[in-house]
């Protein structure tokens, strides 16, 4: 929205400083995500003076919790998980407007009580308030919550006015294409698409946003951003941790559902999409959908485009780590992959013939997420042949998403001296070094974006479906063959041998960032 389209009293202020009066309702208020991310995000937004004075927080959950106790839990969460220390005057102001409503997720009467609770806030305030619902619950109750938001009138409150209700939905957006479509249908029966914010916190990370800036604000990259100059692209989302106490959940999920289908596919879409006509949310999301739909269906089966594996016993950070099958809550013959790798081909003018390698796994050598663009080598043999003198690397532009957000470019340079010897060097830019590490966390940015109605960094329904369309045949195949083809890798390593085969056919290897 341009400045001139906004209220005159918001002209000249950044859009993030113009949030309307808002009630944020968190479903799943006593959950882990609420404590670790959502409450600290709200607190830090208050710390940065980005919340409106008329901001209200309402926790909602099955467990009856008095208001004061909920405020106490929130206080503890800030002390433990906030990136900044608890500052009493900031938190007191938010806490004074924080309440809790207990109720079931499938109980319409409870939602009517919630509606009355918010109406009372609005009446006391004397003006209209936007309702922002954050669904941070297990996916099994997504649909009942959405249906009850519709049935209680909460979803349609102030519809067609700037204060219309909004809903943020946490992943997973379904467990396959069919369930994703069913979830989208349930959502669309209650909310218009412009009220819906499907959150993938990766999109709130600075480097991910910087990807668009690097691509489209620097004239040097975009002319090279195609099959003529790029050899391959590797996208890695590696975790050091195992499944821990989440074995029960993970058994139903696996790496493909938990990471590849959402985070890595979003990173791929932003890397490969065509330049959008504008920075408007729909323009960007249209381009993401186009490129996701241009990905060729995967070849599945032996020597196909997919590898999967489970971690075996190994060593992480100098300590022995158990294998996946020895973890708590894991079936002895589990068919759930803790590692998945894909080789994708995008069937369009820009990317024909350029492989995109995606991988994600648990218990890998280190926690790292990055996008690496490997450029083709220069033509000719001017600096080839004598390998001792000419240590030439492929130019690689890598966006490090976590940890140590930043980007680096590998260049070949001459080693000082009388003889011409070459050596790869790395030009780096790190956010922490340049701007300090205490930058806003992804959830802060995303919650605020939803409050001000900017859907750019959220996933549209058709994006989620396009991604599931690609991954669902793989999941179906794996289910049909049981453990056949399940590889393993040592905990603390960079992945299984079968994944190496995916890249080695082109004489390449996985990066070890």
């Amino acid at each position, binding site marked *: 929205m341009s400045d001139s389209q906004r*209220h*005159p009293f918001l002209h000249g202020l950044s859009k993030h400083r113009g*949030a309307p009066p808002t009630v944020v309702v968190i479903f799943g208020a006593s959950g882990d995500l609420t404590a670790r991310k959502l409450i600290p995000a709200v607190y830090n937004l208050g710390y940065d003076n980005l919340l409106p004075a008329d901001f209200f927080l309402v926790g909602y959950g099955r467990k009856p919790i008095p208001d004061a106790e909920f405020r106490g839990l929130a206080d503890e969460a800030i002390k433990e998980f906030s990136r900044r220390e608890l500052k009493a005057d900031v938190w007191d102001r938010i806490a004074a407007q924080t309440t809790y409503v207990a109720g079931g997720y499938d109980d319409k009467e409870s939602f009517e009580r919630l509606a009355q609770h918010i109406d009372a806030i609005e009446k006391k305030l*004397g003006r209209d308030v936007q309702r922002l619902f954050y669904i941070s619950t297990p996916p099994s109750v997504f649909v009942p919550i959405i249906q009850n938001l519709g049935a209680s009138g909460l979803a349609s409150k102030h519809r067609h006015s700037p204060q219309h209700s909004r809903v943020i939905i946490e992943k997973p957006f379904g467990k396959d294409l069919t369930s994703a479509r069913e979830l989208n249908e349930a959502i669309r029966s209650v909310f218009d698409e412009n009220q819906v914010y499907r959150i993938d916190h990766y999109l709130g990370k600075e480097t991910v946003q910087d990807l668009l800036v690097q691509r489209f604000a620097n004239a040097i990259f975009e002319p090279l951003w195609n099959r003529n100059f790029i050899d391959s692209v590797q996208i890695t989302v590696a975790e050091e941790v195992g499944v821990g106490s989440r074995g029960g959940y993970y058994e139903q999920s696996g790496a493909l559902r938990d990471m590849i289908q959402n985070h890595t596919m979003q990173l791929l879409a932003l890397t490969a999409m065509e330049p959008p006509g504008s920075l408007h949310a729909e323009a960007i999301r249209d381009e993401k959908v186009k490129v996701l739909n241009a990905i060729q269906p995967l070849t599945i089966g032996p020597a196909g485009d997919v590898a999967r594996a489970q971690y075996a016993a190994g060593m992480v950070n100098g300590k022995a780590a158990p294998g996946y099958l020895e973890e708590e809550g894991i079936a002895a013959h589990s068919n759930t992959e803790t590692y998945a790798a894909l080789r994708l081909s995008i069937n369009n003018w820009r990317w024909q013939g350029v492989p995109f390698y995606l991988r994600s796994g648990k218990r890998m050598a280190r926690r790292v997420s990055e996008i690496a663009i490997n450029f083709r080598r220069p033509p000719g043999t001017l600096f080839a042949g004598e390998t001792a003198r000419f240590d030439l690397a492929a130019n690689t532009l890598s966006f490090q998403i976590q940890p140590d957000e930043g980007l680096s470019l590998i260049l070949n340079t001459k080693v000082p001296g009388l003889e011409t010897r070459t050596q790869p060097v790395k030009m780096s830019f790190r956010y*922490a070094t340049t701007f300090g590490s*205490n930058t806003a966390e992804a959830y802060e940015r995303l919650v605020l974006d939803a409050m001000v109605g900017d859907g750019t960094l959220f996933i549209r329904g058709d994006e989620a479906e396009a991604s599931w369309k690609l991954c669902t045949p793989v999941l179906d195949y794996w289910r049909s063959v049981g453990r056949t083809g399940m590889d393993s890798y040592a905990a603390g390593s960079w992945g299984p041998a079968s994944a190496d085969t995916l890249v080695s056919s082109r004489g390449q290897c996985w990066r070890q960032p």
Partner: protein
Amino acid sequence: MPDIFEALPGIDVPVSGIPKGLTQMWASNAESGQPSPESEDAKAMQVNFVLHLGLNTTPDDAAKQFETVVKFARRYPSRIVVLCPRSNDEPAPEMRAKIYGECFLGRSKSDKRCVEFVMLSYSKSARPYLENQVSTALSTDLPLYYWAHRFSASGRLADYRYLLSRAKRVLIDSAISPPDALTYPWPNPETTRDLVYCRLLPIRQSVGQFLAAYPPAKIIAGLKAVNVRHDSAVAAEARVLVAWLQRRLAACGAKNDTIAFNVTPRAAEMTSSLAIDFDYGAPCPFFRWRGDLGTGHALFEADFGSGLTRLPAAVSLLSPENTLSEAMFF
């Protein structure tokens, strides 16, 4: 009067020896176990920032502004050049230099930023050579920001044309500058920013967010006067605030010639630092805002026909270092 140059920290070096001096400074820091950049990575200077202290700056004021720049540099590592004029002139042009560095350790191992400061003291007769000397201390392929602190002589603008015309932003504090400082013939007037306006951001945001919940037509209907009262410490802020309200109301469609805009010192009984009243010549509608910068508490009261809204809020001015970043980058 003591020299402002003397009030600033740093090691004296010849002007010709600034680069060498900086290298040696970090090396000796490392030897003595103090923080120093292990690589050029840590010297992450992404902007050039020139703080030009005016002739009327006192040593205490110079130290205070320097501290503000240090705090700013913790967030935005910059190549910082501080220019210190000398009032007593010498017949021969003379310039002295000091260097200073700080490393800031953050929360992660990669969060170490080392910032270099170059202080240049110059006599009046050295002024024609100043810009060349400054240019050698800058990273000229990076953006330049210029803070003219207590700059009071419009006739001198031509002396600094190189810096002023290259600067992406020229920062002026109208609270301590001559009244006409903003209208001096700056080479690029559109790049000048008033720090007072930037300091007011939290108040503009808070008032703006509150009023944005009402239709513009309701806000301006029947509005007779806008009164801003202030205590003596924020007279400039009040002046800038009323000018902002005037522009925003005009954007709402108000005919400003029918509305009186008044700025008055606060009455003795008033406890708040700043107060805004929209006067509609009747008890309703009304809009009032009271802000006490001492306690950080503000209060909105309004009724535009939909019932009384009484809303406590926070109030503050931006800190000096955040005011700089607001003025430079936003």
